[in-house]
């Protein structure tokens, strides 16, 4: 465990010693503020409209804080899709390029410890990133009284979703020595997992439609956003994460054989 923590610590220091952590954090916080503002404005407008309609047709209940948090957090899931490859691109590719992988793989560490150390480092940074969304969310809590249940499940969903993406990106970074290629490949892979949804909508047979919808990485977030906890969605993200970690582990093994 101490070995794993040593890797996590080094990796986090590396993030914050290079510009990457600051660039990613700044862009993410800026974008989240921007989107929060525009979603806020949209919902306010809808609120005004429904008030005017209420004068004519009688009042209808409307959960404005819930709409805002749901819209905001769903948007964040898309932004994360674009940003996550930047966190994972260098994890193994840089080690390969600089030859430091030889240090890790000849130290008295198991391959699993190396993989978990890298994974937990990127996962920790992701959690830091995700926690910055509490800035706009705090504004929401300050001026309204949103229901906390759906917000908590939404965060749980985002957490699982992020960890799965980290594991996929981690695997891809073992495949190349080039960070940019790792980032583009991760981005492409995640995009495919995302766009499967669109293909699913056009699918003809109901069976293939069901399968494709299940494979889509974003479709599983919907229920979390609505405040519904379902084991099938949790299993999807957890198994995607485990597949990513397993492939990473295997890839390191084959790296040894090829030398």
């Amino acid at each position, binding site marked *: 465990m*101490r*070995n794993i923590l040593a890797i996590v610590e*080094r990796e986090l220091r590396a993030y914050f010693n290079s510009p990457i952590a600051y660039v990613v954090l700044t862009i993410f916080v800026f974008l989240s503020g921007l989107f929060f503002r525009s979603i806020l404005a949209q919902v306010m407008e809808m609120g005004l409209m429904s008030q005017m309609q209420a004068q004519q047709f009688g009042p209808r209940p409307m959960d404005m804080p819930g709409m805002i948090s749901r819209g905001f957090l769903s948007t964040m899931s898309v932004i994360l899709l674009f940003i996550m490859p930047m966190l994972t691109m260098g994890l193994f590719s840089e080690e390969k390029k600089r030859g430091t992988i030889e240090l890790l793989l*000849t*130290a008295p560490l198991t391959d699993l410890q190396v993989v978990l150390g890298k994974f937990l480092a990127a996962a920790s940074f992701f959690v830091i990133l995700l926690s910055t969304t509490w800035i706009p969310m705090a504004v929401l809590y300050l001026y309204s009284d949103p229901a906390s249940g759906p917000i908590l499940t939404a965060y749980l969903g985002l957490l699982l979703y992020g960890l799965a993406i980290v594991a996929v990106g981690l695997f891809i970074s073992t495949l190349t020595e080039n960070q940019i290629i790792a980032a583009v490949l991760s981005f492409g892979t995640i995009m495919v997992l995302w766009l499967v949804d669109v293909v699913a909508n056009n699918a003809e047979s109901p069976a293939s439609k069901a399968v494709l919808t299940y494979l889509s990485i974003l479709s599983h977030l919907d229920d979390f956003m609505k405040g519904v906890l379902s084991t099938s969605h949790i299993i999807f993200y957890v198994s995607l994460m485990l597949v990513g970690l397993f492939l990473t582990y295997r890839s390191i093994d084959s790296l040894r054989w090829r030398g």
Partner: protein
Amino acid sequence: MITVENLAKRYATKTAIEGMSFQVEKGEILGFLGPNGAGKTTTMRIITGYMPASDGTVRVDGFDVFENPIDVRRRIGYLPENPPLYLEMSVVGYLRFVAKIKGVPKDKLAAEVDRVMERVNIADVKDRIIAKLSKGYKQRVGIAQALLNDPPVLILDEPTIGLDPKQIHEVRELIKDLAGKHTVVLSTHILPEVEQTCHRVIIIDHGKIVAVDTPKNLRYQLQGAERVTIEVQGPATEISSKLKNMPGVVDVRKIGDSDGRHRFQVEGELQKDIRSDLARTVVQNGWGLFELQSATMSLEDIFIKLTTAEESEKQNA
């Protein structure tokens, strides 16, 4: 301390090393000498557990590299050809990290890092960022990393490559200093380096051991001793004793085997060609003769290759 038996590493398209067997005694400095691409780095990487062998076994302090990789790695300090440095870290930060993954206990961490920095003389740059250090300092940080946790075995891949003459001298003195307490295996393609630092030399070419000897004997051999490499199929011990008893043969040593064939290094008396006698003995006993080569010749070839390589390096410097 290190026992390598019949080691082989084969890739789909080429064979990196084949039928390599040797031993390294405790406290010894063993040099791998050979041209680039001869298989030095591959052999070292297999001993350190970085890559698995296709065939054969490696034991370090009694532990098998394949079966107990962690036990083996705990006993080895390894300096790869390119020092594995995280350039954005400070010297002391980097060494602390390596000490942690090598399992140095928390309360001894600072003292251990100080110790190795003293040992290789880098305490004056401890807070500098590694990227900003000169090549000589970087190399020494790499050696310091290998010394952490005081491993009994040190594997150093081309420890003096790319250094200036003064730095080369310093590193060689350091390595000589480390012997005795540590068992050292180092590789080089520079002949004088071996003569100055190593107790024993293994010459490798095309993935095979060409000769094993002390630097002194090697030089003697260059002056005209008769040495023949012979590859025979048959019972190893019987072949060895029969050949030993032949007139004109001074010594027979096994240097490797593959697929039931055994390679021997046969040393003959000076100025006496024993090759035809060897061939006759092998055939008369009904063993299969696969190769018979005057080692002196090929050794010379290698030495020429090696020395010319150093000459051209000097010119480039």
